[in-house]
């Protein structure tokens, strides 16, 4: 038995997420020593708009770091580095002389740049910048959000052109403040966050002059692009300066990339899928930026210091855990999310029912905004238990579709899928996933893969861990589900699912208005 009371030294990781900021202290085995967390306000000024108060976020980050360190009962000498992972694409502009944000941060879910993105597509459409950036013109990404701020905040463009304004995603904001803020704070971002701005050339890892100009973002306000694992600076000044001054700030990774890193998907073809409200799947594609023809995003997976960047393909599913919540809250068929498994387990199969939860259209690999949800194959025989089963199968089939798209784009067959997130406690779902993918599904022992990824990257940067091989050795399998479905059944079921998907399309009229 290893010692239950872990001994130092440690790495601290900050997860600046969409709903909360957290700090977790990890030991050398990658075990959690302490956690602190604080939620921040979600601001909805108009339908479709979502903002965060960046000042509140910075205050919370300082509190949770202090909180986690105090809960662990350790001091600055025990902490070798701090790493950062963050909600991706959320965009902030601030004044470099005062440190004050010029506006609330515009959150990734915010759709205010929809029409701007259409306009930016000009005659080419949403793939205008895809070859350079790996991304379609969509409202998530940071560049157009920055442009919106420059257009809509009085006098901001002049201040930006005069060099007084700094742009950043939340990693940049946190690092700049941690390393001193107005007193010499480091204005940097990492390659993974930069790859979500639509301003970076994916092949050169540099800001793309032409695209910055097309989108209308002055280059002088952009942060320096650095690797995901290197020392950007040291904790300096402020309340944390007293507590943790001098500790290296040594990693930054977008949250999904951090989970890829935390799951130790370091080899080409390794993939992870995070099952929360929605689902994000990333596959390591090695040193190749693979252009997707199947509706996936091409993104940077990570870059360790001077090493070559590692690319990834990304597919997202809008509705997974939220479908279970819908069954609980809107349909009232279950009392808790976990009960979906009880209900679904009371029958042997889906009874012929298929549920396509295209609540806000179909995402990867279809990208059909005119689709809406359907339950197909209903007969008198179908019970709520069959619907519950169809709900779980919907998540598994959508994962299969993304996996197929990844295989098509990359030519790499998925050997095994590493999973994390809340829905991994659903045994039936995990078995179904393995059955539908015809591949093993494995769950790691540390559920907090996002924070762990940031800690790993920071630890590598300061030599706390020697190599990715050492991190791989830290990875522990907590459970593994292996396929147990004959090929005939799988193929027949997949065909039925695809038919149901077909029926969800074209529900909205061409105008796209609901």
């Amino acid at each position: 038995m290893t010692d239950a009371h872990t001994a130092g030294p440690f790495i601290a990781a900050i997860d600046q997420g969409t709903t909360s900021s957290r700090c977790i202290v990890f030991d050398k085995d990658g075990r959690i020593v302490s956690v602190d967390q604080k939620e921040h306000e979600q601001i909805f000024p108009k339908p479709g708009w979502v903002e965060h108060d960046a000042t509140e976020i910075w205050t919370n980050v300082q509190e949770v770091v202090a909180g986690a360190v105090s809960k662990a009962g350790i001091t600055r000498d025990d902490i070798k580095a701090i790493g950062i992972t963050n909600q991706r694409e959320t965009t902030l502009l601030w004044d470099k002389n005062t440190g004050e944000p010029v506006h609330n941060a515009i959150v990734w879910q915010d759709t205010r740049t929809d029409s701007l993105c259409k306009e930016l597509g000009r005659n080419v459409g949403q793939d205008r910048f895809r070859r350079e950036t790996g991304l379609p013109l969509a409202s998530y990404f940071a560049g157009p959000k920055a442009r919106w701020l420059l257009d809509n905040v009085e006098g901001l463009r002049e201040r930006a052109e005069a060099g007084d304004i700094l742009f950043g995603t939340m990693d940049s904001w946190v690092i700049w403040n941690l390393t001193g803020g107005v007193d010499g704070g480091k204005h940097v971002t990492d390659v993974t966050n930069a790859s979500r701005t639509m301003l970076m050339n994916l092949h050169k890892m540099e800001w793309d002059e032409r695209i910055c100009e097309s989108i209308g973002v002055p280059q002088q306000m952009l942060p320096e692009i650095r690797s995901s694992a290197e020392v950007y600076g040291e904790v300096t000044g402020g309340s944390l300066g007293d507590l943790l001054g001098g500790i290296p700030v040594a990693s930054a990774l977008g949250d999904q990339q951090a989970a890829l890193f935390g799951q130790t998907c370091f080899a080409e073809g390794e993939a992870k899928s995070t099952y929360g409200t929605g689902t994000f799947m990333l596959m390591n594609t090695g040193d190749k930026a693979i252009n997707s023809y199947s509706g996936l995003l091409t993104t940077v997976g990570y870059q360790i210091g001077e090493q070559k960047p590692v690319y990834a393909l990304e597919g997202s599913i809008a509705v997974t855990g939220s479908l279970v919540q819908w069954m609980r809250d809107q349909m009232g068929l279950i009392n808790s999310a976990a009960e979906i498994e009880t209900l679904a387990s009371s029958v042997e199969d889906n009874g012929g029912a298929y549920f396509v939860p295209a609540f806000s259209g179909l995402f990867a690999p279809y990208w059909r905004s005119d689709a809406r949800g359907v339950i197909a194959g209903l007969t008198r025989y179908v019970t709520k238990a069959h619907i519950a089963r169809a709900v779980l199968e919907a998540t598994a089939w959508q994962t299969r579709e993304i996996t197929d798209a990844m295989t098509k784009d990359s030519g790499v067959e998925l050997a095994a899928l590493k999973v994390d997130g809340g829905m991994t406690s659903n045994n039936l779902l995990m078995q179904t996933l393995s059955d539908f993918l015809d591949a093993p599904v494995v769950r790691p022992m540390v559920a907090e893969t996002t924070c762990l990824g940031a800690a790993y990257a920071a630890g590598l940067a300061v030599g706390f861990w020697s190599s990715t091989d050492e991190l791989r050795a830290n990875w522990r399998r907590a459970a593994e589900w292996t396929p147990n479905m004959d090929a005939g059944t799988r193929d027949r079921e997949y065909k039925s699912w695809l038919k149901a998907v077909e029926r969800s399309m074209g529900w909205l009229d061409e105008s796209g208005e609901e």
Partner: protein
Amino acid sequence: MARNIQSLERAAAMLRLLAGGERRLGLSEIASALDLAKGTAHGILRTLQAEGFVEQDPTSGRYQLGAELLRLGNSYLDVHELRARALVWTDDLARSSGESVHLGVLHQQGVLIVHHVFRPDDSRQVLEVGAMQPLHSTALGKVLSAYDPVAHNEAVEVEREAFTVRTVTGPEEFEGVLDLTRARGYASDVEETWEGVAAVAAPIHDRRRMPVGAVGVTGAVERVCKDGELRPELIAAVRDCARAVSRDLGAGRF
């Protein structure tokens, strides 16, 4: 026919009365509807209220059916809810103990494994969720038999098979094992079910202090025991885990 207990009959009549309509009822309405003295009716209502079967509206003072009564019908804890709540704690137990972790509940005449965390050594292992284990010889089964009266009846009534020479099968010896389990707060299984395998388990309670399951570690006897005794730090880790899950389910400190 033996005489029924009058106060229980009256309490049942009150519950039926309150279930009859949507209105909340005042004390005097209840008393006159059932032809009881106010003092008698109040005593019964107060008892029902203390048990959670009846609630009193703080402003009007009227009575209505309590949440506890509604829970009675489906009061069992969903095993998948139990697994979801136990996930992080059992992961940590596997990690700190270096052994595999199982979570079990009573099902028919045995222990149903509802959650299984692999031993963290990268060896090939098979998920045992859904498997059944015997009640009388495993650590999980002994914990359930010691704390859950229904499990106890099942364990006492079945024929207790001797899986190894160490399996306790005699009725008195078995009761002795359960007494010891309750006294210590954990149960062990040292080669009583499988040769070469030892386990230690502790009870999980819900917010009403009802035993809802058991959690334990299982491993090679050479690792789990030292000098013929269970390793104390292992016992402590299992009990910590059981307490943490119980706390998550709303049970108070104990």
